[in-house]
């Protein structure tokens, strides 16, 4: 099935920016939002921004999708990176918005080829840095 449950479309810009993040690594994170009837890029984070900068960019009462390129060092002292997909849907956001984002997620995620870890979060504790580190393993 090509469509998501909600029938939301995806702007090509999203796929392009994601490819740049993946291949050229010139962004740390990308935040996407749904505008009108499609998913568009809202914000791009430069490679030197931190995870805190990323979480601070997510609104506290509105839903977003985001990808974050996480660099870490394994126990064997090996430099690695993993691409996270985060569905941010805070409890305080409106039901309508939660519904739109949840029902469009599946389709959107499939447009972004190369996501390694997926996370859904409804409050900041569900996407704390500790959880990110744990999931990267």
């Amino acid at each position, binding site marked *: *099935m090509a*469509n*998501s*449950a*909600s*029938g*939301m*479309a995806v702007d090509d810009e999203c796929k392009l920016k994601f490819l740049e993040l993946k291949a050229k690594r010139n962004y740390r994170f990308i935040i996407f939002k749904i505008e*009108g*009837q499609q998913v568009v890029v809202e914000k791009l984070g430069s490679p030197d921004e931190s995870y805190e900068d990323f979480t601070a960019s997510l609104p506290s009462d509105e*839903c977003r999708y985001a990808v974050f390129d996480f660099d870490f060092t394994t126990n064997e002292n090996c430099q690695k990176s993993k691409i996270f997909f985060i*569905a941010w*849907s805070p*409890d305080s*956001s409106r*039901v*309508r*918005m*939660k*519904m*739109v*984002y*949840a*029902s*469009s*997620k*599946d389709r959107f*995620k499939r447009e972004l080829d190369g996501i390694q870890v997926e996370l*859904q979060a*409804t409050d900041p504790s*569900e996407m704390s840095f500790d959880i990110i580190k744990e999931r990267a393993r």
Partner: protein
Amino acid sequence: MYGGDEVSAIVVDLGSHTCKAGYAGEDAPKAVFPSVVGSIDQMEIDDADNSDKNSGSGPESKSKGKRKLYVGSQDLGFRRDHMEVLSPTKDGIVVDWDMVENIWDHALRKCLLVDPKEHPMLLAEPCSNTQQQREKTAEIMFEKYQVPALFLAKNAVLTSFASGRATSLVVDCGGGSTTVAPVHDGYVLQKAVATSPIGGEFLTDCLLRSLEHKGLSIKPRYAFKRKEIRPGEFQIVDLDFPNTTESYKLYCQRVIVGDIKECVCRAPDTPYDETSYSNIPMTPYELPDGQTIEIGADRFKIPDVLFNPSLVQTIPGMESFVETASSARGLPQMVIESINKCDVDIRRELFSSILLAGGTASMQQLKERLEKDLLEESPQAARVKVLASGNATERRFSVWIGGSILASLGSFQQMWFSKSEYEEHGASYIQRKCP
């Protein structure tokens, strides 16, 4: 593709206990009425005729075949001789389509006052719906109601989306049953769905029998007249209607006891045991006939049946249900079983997003108790989180609200199963349009 988003769609969620219907885009359903119908066999209509004329035998009571059906709280609230109260569904599956059509008729034509020909229709369906049921639904909707477009959405998926999650474990404590369904990326994982016949209605019956055993009689509202003889002083006159059916009496008693349950019951923090609850203070409740009853340990014991169905054995009068209950699992066991049937990769995610929904989910302390029991029984590494909307309306109507939002999205308009597609591909196309 159906392209009419100027007219709002109609959303109907026909549950085992209540039918919820309303316009897409609104916050709550406009019409909420029991999903049972009163039925009088026309063979016996002769002596029932009088009472019919009194009520004006409203246009909503339709003569179909050999029986007359009565739908809606108002029509059911009026006692009629020989009127049986029947449910069109059994274990979530429709067994009597004629009744279902009457319920739809009532919802659309009487409550919402709409012409179904003009509005796309989104119906919520239980996870257990079979292919034949779905095709039959499509057939009736397009042939009889001639709706311009139709969509069937699974209860659990709508609840999950409405809480902002595409992946979650939905625990739906409904009237007739409890269903635990894992949803992954917007699809129900059918193989892992667990159901039990213990729902709100079952708890109501337990409470009713338990009260009766204590010698308290729950008088249905039709069985007495309350007269004010002096200001503030009432006299109760018992009325006798020998032709009232058992099922109607039970229906009326359930309405009363259901209210008692909602007012006084709360899930105990730890598994119920007779000794530690024997001294708890009594809670008063005033019955419609003015009699005040006091409820003690039952306040905690009845809800605990959800967690430990074998408790039914100790409730007098429920002997005939012991078998049903012994095959049923407690809520925490159902959750864990269901999660263990899912792929290892998503178990962690399911444990941390358990959604509590349905009418019985409004029971006080239910969420806290479920979370506590699951913490004890789940694997160490799992982060258990039980979520329930803080808003009582959202909890009760989560399925309907999910449908309401979905059907009102501009982008959703291309998803409908349209009349022209139905004419071209037939009813079986519903399986492809609404997976």
